[in-house]
């Protein structure tokens, strides 16, 4: 059994870090792991997409369309863009935040409504929580907490530093409730 996750967001949001955290927790839990990153041009404020797969033995590094157990989106427009990856019954985890595209303003409510039309969407106010904790950079830690709990990996993060751990706990609580 291999679990496939697609992590998306906007360059600068810590998409890669989130994916590596998930991979590191999975490794600590004893799984084989592959993380497919994309570096370079994709980081200049553009869409960023990283694939994580873990299980007893992972072969292919890339998640195919209609094959992801989870899509974790740090931004709502990117959640729409990654929608094609969700497999039947897969879960879409969305940070409730929109980073507008220059010259292409979209109405946030319309985006959230569209995402809610999928039954297995879970909105996480990670950005708001992170701001309350003092810095928006912790939004990926909040999502990490949520994901780790969903994936059964929340017991394998003793390497996470204290400040990120606080945000992590907030996310984990949301997944437990």
């Amino acid at each position, binding site marked *: 059994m291999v679990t496939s996750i697609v992590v998306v967001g906007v360059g600068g949001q810590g998409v890669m870090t989130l994916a590596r955290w998930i*991979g590191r927790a999975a490794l600590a839990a004893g799984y084989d792991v592959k993380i497919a990153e994309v570096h370079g041009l994709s980081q200049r*404020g553009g869409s960023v997409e990283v694939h994580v797969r873990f299980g007893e033995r992972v072969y292919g590094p890339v998640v195919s369309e209609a094959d992801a157990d989870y899509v974790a989106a740090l931004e709502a427009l990117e959640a729409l863009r990654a929608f094609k990856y969700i497999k039947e019954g897969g879960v879409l985890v969305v940070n409730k935040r929109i980073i507008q595209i*220059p010259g292409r303003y979209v109405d946030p409510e319309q985006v959230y409504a569209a995402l809610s039309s999928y039954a297995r969407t879970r909105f996480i106010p990670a950005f708001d929580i992170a701001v309350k904790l003092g810095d*928006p950079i912790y939004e990926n830690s909040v999502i990490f907490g949520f994901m780790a709990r969903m994936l059964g990996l929340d017991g394998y993060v003793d390497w996470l530093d204290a400040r990120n751990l606080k945000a992590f706990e907030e996310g984990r609580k949301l997944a437990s409730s």
Partner: protein
Amino acid sequence: MRHLLLGNEAIAYGALSAGVAVAAGYPGTPSSEIIETLEEYKDRFVEWATNEKTAVEMAYGAALAGARALAAMKHVGLNVAADPLHSAAYTGVVGGFLIVTADDPNMWSSQNEQDSRWYGLQSYIPVLEPSEPQEAFKMAKEGLLLSESLEHPVMLRSVTRLSHVRAPVDVEPPAPPKFGKFSRNMEKYVLVPQNARARRADLLKKWERIADIAARFISVEGDGPVTVVTSGVGYLYAVEAVERLRVKATIIKASMSVPLPRKILDLIRGDAVVVEEGDPVVETQLRILGVRTRGKLDGFFPRMGELSLRSVIEGVSKALNLGVKLPEPPRPPLQPPPRPPYFCPGCPHMGTFYALKLAAAGHNVVWSGDIGCYTLGINTGQQDLATHMGSSVGLGMGIAVADKEKLVIATIGDSTFYHAALPQLVDLKTKRIPMVVVIMDNEYTAMTGGQPSPSKLIPAEKLAEAVGLKHYAMDPADLKKSIEVAKKAIADAKSGEPVVVVSRRPCILEAYRTARRSGVRPPKYYVVADKCKACGICYNVLRCYAITRLPDGKAWIDPSLCNGCSMCAQVCPYDAIKTEDPERARKWLELWSRA
């Protein structure tokens, strides 16, 4: 303990454990982390070369002198290095010589999708093709030692989905670096025709021996009736596809994919399904050996882009007539607008392009572009071409002589300038071609992650001076002055003179790093809503990514994105963009210029 390592890191550790002593590369996605990893080891000579040709020459020379050497680059870099590469096969080497190239199927960060393995066939250099990071470690080590025992260069071909895949890897500790001693061997190393003919004859014999050795790199899994031949990451997808399709197969993995050994024929029963990343290189060789294949040549697998589990399942299904249909990908409930990459807020290139645009208004301009962050000038229509490193000056000269009506403005980054445009500078002068060459000197190789550029040590204006070209300096954070400078340069070109403009200010990302280290918080700018007249100059003409057009047309600056460059405040005709503390803003510009 196994660590999650990138394929590139694994390659570097493999070379270290084989005692690599000299390593040279030129940055390029997806290859850059190989040299970056090796750079930490100060007991060896590791360098960023000015281009791939000098990198390969550095490593080749070191290997001639008996050292263990590695050269690393992206696929297109091998084109730049192709000349010494071919000679290396003729002369052979004394120490191990491993050439690592990272191909980029699907062109995630490249201008083409070329397959480096053809170079192996063309130059008579064997190619190793690992499929995942652990194997990359092993093969980098083996490859370097094999090269030394064969006295012949060896290539290691990676792809994006190996170089930039992170997976658990067991590494062995580095071995001491093996440097060397150069011994004369004129008959081998001086390739005058008489010697070269002897080397050619030798090379052809050696190639047959290498083809026998390639048989050692073949592994077989399963013993089903269907034969699947794979190499590189193709192997990974093939294993998974066969499993999901419940096909009973024999999977043959050719880890040395060039040359394919004749012995592979003993393993193939009937037709062979071929799964490989890139061009049909394994498949073509199989056909030459007389195997009936079902791969990319007849369209069972897509010729474009990279493999995926999906395309391999579909391809195997087609090849075996299984009629499997995979579920359609779900459609998003709302189509999001595209999010193309932009200049980072405060990018000096944004200021340079703004100044050039205003200064060139009314002229019939050809924006002769190039490869680097500044290619993002496409967002404001200021790149008419960008084909390869050096295209701006090189192709620009051709356009200028072919179409004298146009004003050619070539825009080239500093790293690209030193990499590819020094000879062009000489042509510009000796043929007196009237055009403007703008060197966008952000003092780093920003596009590939901020590697150093020679510009700090050898300023471009000194080179222009030495060649005897008229040149100007500009600071892109001072837009008014920049426009004046650009106007002067354009007037020179219009009067028939080639002219160089050096637009210098460090990459804003590097400036931000410096600021963080020195505890400085860059200022933020904001829009005074009452004063904003919704003219759109800041978000349409300057096009800063931090500035959003609100539904009423007014501008809004996202404080989490603003880098405090002040350019928007300079372009606003209504004085509607402000910062809290102008003194802090001034200090920031000063610190930034020294990043």
